[in-house]
């Protein structure tokens, strides 16, 4: 079942491309020229994204490399130890809204440190899998269309992310027993 889903996941992209090109060809569209036109727009969009990506990378880099993240985790650590939750999961929870690659790296570290089938490993996996990188996604998506007033979007994203984090901490241990 899972193997089939994986195969589907790998086949979906090439087949989708084939379907789109086929539909274009059938309508006698100039597919090559349309592709170039769209790709040009795509390049322009991405150039507009560069400052947003730069701002995020710099801020997260400074926050992690300065030791501020570790300090925050060690300050909140006792509360987590009291609740019998490994403080490493807090690091993951704090990184997750900021950076997909940093949180994926942390998840991989946690899986190796505690074992992928341990309570911590499973909880970390669920945290990693069930939420999006709120800040990154928001600045990328809104930045690409130059929206300045985000209304409640950030608040909504962070509340969702926090609820998923708490739910993951509760559900993780149940999956192992």
């Amino acid at each position, binding site marked *: 079942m899972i193997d089939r889903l994986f195969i589907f996941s790998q086949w979906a992209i090439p087949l989708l491309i084939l379907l789109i090109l086929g539909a274009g060809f059938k309508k006698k569209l100039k597919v090559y020229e349309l592709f170039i036109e*769209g790709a040009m727009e795509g390049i322009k969009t991405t150039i507009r994204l560069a400052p947003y990506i730069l701002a995020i990378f*710099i801020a997260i880099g*400074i926050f992690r490399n300065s030791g501020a993240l570790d300090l925050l985790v060690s300050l909140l650590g006792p509360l987590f130890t009291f609740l019998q939750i490994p403080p490493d999961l807090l690091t993951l929870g704090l990184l997750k809204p900021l950076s997909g690659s940093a949180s994926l790296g942390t998840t991989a570290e946690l899986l190796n440190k505690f074992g992928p089938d341990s309570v911590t490993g499973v909880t970390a996996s669920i945290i990693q899998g069930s939420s999006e990188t709120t800040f990154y996604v928001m600045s990328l998506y809104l930045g690409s269309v130059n*929206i300045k007033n985000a209304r409640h979007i950030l608040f909504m994203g962070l509340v969702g992310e926090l609820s*998923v984090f708490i739910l993951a901490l509760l559900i993780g241990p149940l999956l192992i027993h």
Partner: protein
Amino acid sequence: MINIVWFCLVSIGILVAAGTGKLELISNSIFSNAGKAIEFTIGLAGIIAFWSGILKIAEASGVTEAVAKVFQPLLSKLFPKIPKGHPVMGFISLTVAANLFGLGNVATPLGLQTMSALKMLSTDQDTASDATCTFMALVFGGLSIIPTTLIAIRAQAGSVNPALIMVPVFALSLAGTLIGLFINYLALHWNYKTAAAQKENCLD
């Protein structure tokens, strides 16, 4: 809000480094991350350009409209203001589908395409429209059936059952999506009430 968060991340980082006497780390960090950010953007440019090109064909050939029709009944409840059968519904469905099946690097180009289509429907160019807010709720939720990358790194770490997390991940991403949509619903409605109240005051 994003201004406060960005300010805090940078300034707290610099203060902590100053406090521990490791200020030189900051310059190094800026230097290496500035380079990484641009490298990352260039990598992203390729995949975004490719999919923007393919989606241009999809739009012209009517594929997005066909997809929109399939998901119309479900999406028209979430996006009451988008005209029926509008191609943007197709983009929204494709973005959600890409996330659902773990096609991470297609989801971003699709998402950006959706954002620009949503903006064209919006009257206020600087402010996120209602539909944009709802779409962001769906994106943040990140509904996923096959978390491909996650299963791969679990297998790499030697898990006996790498796919154990599939059902919980789906359940929690669903919970997260619903919570987001609920907050979004409240925020949009509260907005209308205050807007309506203001209108009444003006009439008085």
